[in-house]
């Protein structure tokens, strides 16, 4: 069942050069209890999509979507106050560079306390009468920290963010994100600027949260290799256009878009014959800047299969849940385009 269902989300940003369509009709369906990987290089608009889902965009953005449902709530119809209430409770977010997102002037304890669900007045009153705060704040915080794998909770709680390592800070961020038992966690490149061992710890923690608590995770990353074997579903985005999305198996076994094929080659598996110090496969050219986006399929100028029809934006085609936007996909013999399911 889809927890988050987004159809044709577009974001236009008003700039000095006029309106730029940075996100072009992105559709995203996140199934409850899965990890959904959203992969794209920097500048492809992953963070913009995350911000649009949360509703924290700036005034010069125009966000339009045909459909944007969190379970059965229509996010597009909510006022910003109502959106704010969903934020942190239903959807919470983990950012990159955790140290810069934690308040440097407050101790970790105070910061976690702030995000804990506030007790109702009645509960507080009852606690006072009973004189037993059975489930005290300290205990709850301790439990949270243990959940994310911080053992020495006392020292961590008494420290300021700058005294802790990036990995611990990220764990604290994750603890704050799961404090309200959200239904969806958006992790925006949670492991950038971390060393390999810490990266693995954080990803493993997210994986465990998904497995043990059935939390749905939208995992944004620019590195296909590091998150691909963690995710159940993968969407690949290039310059604000989704190029391909499908289950892990579909994407890894039968990539159909030339960009996905290039991304899979970047994982550098040494099982195949890889000559030492040989040239690595890359697409020609580089990512266009946002004010010089090509028309039609934005991969066009760099694509090895590009033809003249590529100046028309390809429509998404659904092959049994494997959605692809390309005029010339790699097709298997046994795969028929289910064109009636175009969306």
């Amino acid at each position, binding site marked *: 069942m889809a927890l988050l269902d987004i159809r044709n989300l577009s974001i236009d940003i008003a700039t000095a050069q006029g309106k730029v369509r940075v996100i072009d009709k992105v559709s995203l369906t996140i199934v409850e209890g899965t990890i959904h990987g959203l992969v794209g*290089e*920097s500048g492809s608009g992953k963070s913009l999509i995350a911000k649009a889902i949360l509703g924290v965009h700036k005034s010069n953005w125009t966000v339009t979507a045909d459909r944007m449902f969190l379970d059965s709530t229509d996010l597009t119809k909510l006022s910003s106050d109502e959106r704010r209430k969903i934020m942190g409770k239903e959807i919470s977010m983990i950012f990159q560079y955790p140290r810069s997102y934690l308040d440097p002037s407050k101790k970790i304890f105070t910061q976690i306390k702030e995000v804990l669900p506030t007790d109702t007045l009645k509960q507080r009153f009852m606690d006072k009468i009973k004189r037993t705060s059975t489930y005290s704040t300290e205990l709850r915080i301790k439990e949270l920290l243990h959940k994310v794998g911080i053992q020495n909770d006392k020292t961590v709680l008494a420290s300021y963010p700058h005294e802790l390592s990036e990995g611990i800070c990220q764990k604290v961020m994750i603890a704050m994100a799961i404090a309200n038992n959200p239904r969806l966690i958006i992790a925006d490149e949670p492991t950038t*600027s971390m*060393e*390999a*061992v810490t*990266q*693995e710890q954080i*990803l*493993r923690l997210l*994986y465990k949260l998904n497995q043990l608590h059935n939390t749905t995770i939208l995992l944004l990353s*620019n*590195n*296909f*290799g590091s998150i691909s*074997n*963690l995710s159940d579903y993968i969407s690949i985005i290039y310059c604000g256009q989704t190029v391909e999305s499908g289950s892990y198996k579909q994407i890894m076994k039968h990539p159909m878009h030339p960009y996905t094929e*290039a*991304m899979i080659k*970047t994982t*550098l598996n*040494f099982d195949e014959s*890889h000559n*030492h*110090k*040989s*040239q*690595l*496969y*890359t*697409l020609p050219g*580089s*990512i266009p*800047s946002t004010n010089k986006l090509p028309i039609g399929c934005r991969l066009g100028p760099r694509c090895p299969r590009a033809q003249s029809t590529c100046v028309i934006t390809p429509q998404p085609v659904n092959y049994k849940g494997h959605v692809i936007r390309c005029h010339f996909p790699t097709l298997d013999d046994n795969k028929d385009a289910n064109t009636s399911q175009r969306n």
Partner: protein
Amino acid sequence: MGPNSFSLAQGKTLAIVGQSGSGKSSLVQMIAGLKTPTSGEIYIKGKPLSSLTQQERCRSIRMIFQDPSSSLNPKIRIGRILAAPLALNTSLNEQEIEQQIKETLSLVGLLPDYLDFYPNMLSPLQQHQVALARAMILNPDIIIADQIFAMLDISLRFKIVNLLLTIQQKKNVSFIFVAHNMNLVRHMSDRIIVMHNGLIVEDNTTEAIYNAPQSTFTKRLLQSDQPDYRK
């Protein structure tokens, strides 16, 4: 940190890996001359580094920094950025300097048109090419790259790896680089040094390290690289 000893042959690549705080950066900064060792000596082509003048040292060892957009001076044009090391460290005349700049630019795959550009007018890849050109312009023996791949996107990373490999083939220059991504290290390097707490725990050829890692730190590094969650 230390005592550590290792050597590097000409035209080969040495990768330094280890957890953060293990002293990788301090080690390369010592080789580049940004830090001075308390004891011991670094020899280059048989000569001790301390006996070289600043200029000789610059001509021999060059460093590339992590972020070219901050390591290139935004207020001067590419032409002057590239001319500065030549003017400071060599006695070439203006024509020779121009000739050298053009040769180096074509080596890194840039057109001479870019000489009049300011760094911020270039794309990230071109900025990296300029940073590499600045390192290559004195025809050095060793180029030191301290975590230049960490912040890059995967496709850009591959382009720069390709560029470094081509340059090594053409110019027979040696590389010393610090990196986290073990797959990339395996692809690029001939020799690997694994560091822990300021000490070299393993120093061997790339093949040997990958096929038969000796130290536990090396094993842990290799394991952390591509963990399999689907078991």
